[in-house]
């Protein structure tokens, strides 16, 4: 049950971190960090259940949102070299 799932998630987490350390291209690392974030969400939810405090799910929700923001920020940086430029595709900066 929970112990097995926890252990499995930790193994996957270790593999993801290994990829983050070794990944030859930057995109490997970004992918690994994104997966680490998702696995951390799962880990938080499982830990909340193991210690009997499901309020941890709030933190898990926050993680999901921050994970995507971090990934997009990193990709914008890789693409443009810095974060400040607007992207094309319509009137300047207009949504």
């Amino acid at each position, binding site marked *: 049950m929970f112990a097995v799932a926890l252990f499995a998630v930790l193994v*996957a987490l270790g*593999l993801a971190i290994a990829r983050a350390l070794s990944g030859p291209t930057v995109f490997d690392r970004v992918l690994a960090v994104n997966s680490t974030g998702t696995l951390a969400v799962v880990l938080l939810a499982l830990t909340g259940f193991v210690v009997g405090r499901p309020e941890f799910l709030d933190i898990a929700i926050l993680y999901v949102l921050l994970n995507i923001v971090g990934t997009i920020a990193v990709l914008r940086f890789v693409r443009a070299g810095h974060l400040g430029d607007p992207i094309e595709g319509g009137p300047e900066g207009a949504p």
Partner: protein
Amino acid sequence: MDGVLEVASWITLILGGAFCVVGGIGMWRLPDVFARLHAASLIDSLGIGFLALGMALQAGLSLVTLKLVFIVLLVGLTSPVATHALAQAAMHAGVKPRAIESPGAEEDA
């Protein structure tokens, strides 16, 4: 707890953990970024899905289950976007999918 629900939640938890491990192994072993993207998406979809289902079965109908559903929906919204953005960025940066050379055939990457 109801025996059937308990067994079902155990099974889904183990399944979810297994998919996470498979995704991790895929990320480590597959040859290039695009293949690893496929592996990582296993974690985001089936891994979280089954694990959340297992936890929801344990928690019954309550606020906890609602929050778990919310988490799954959010991951379902954000993870494909991240994958898409990653794949686009990798392709525009010139990362080429690693093609396996088959003997005597011309490969265009």
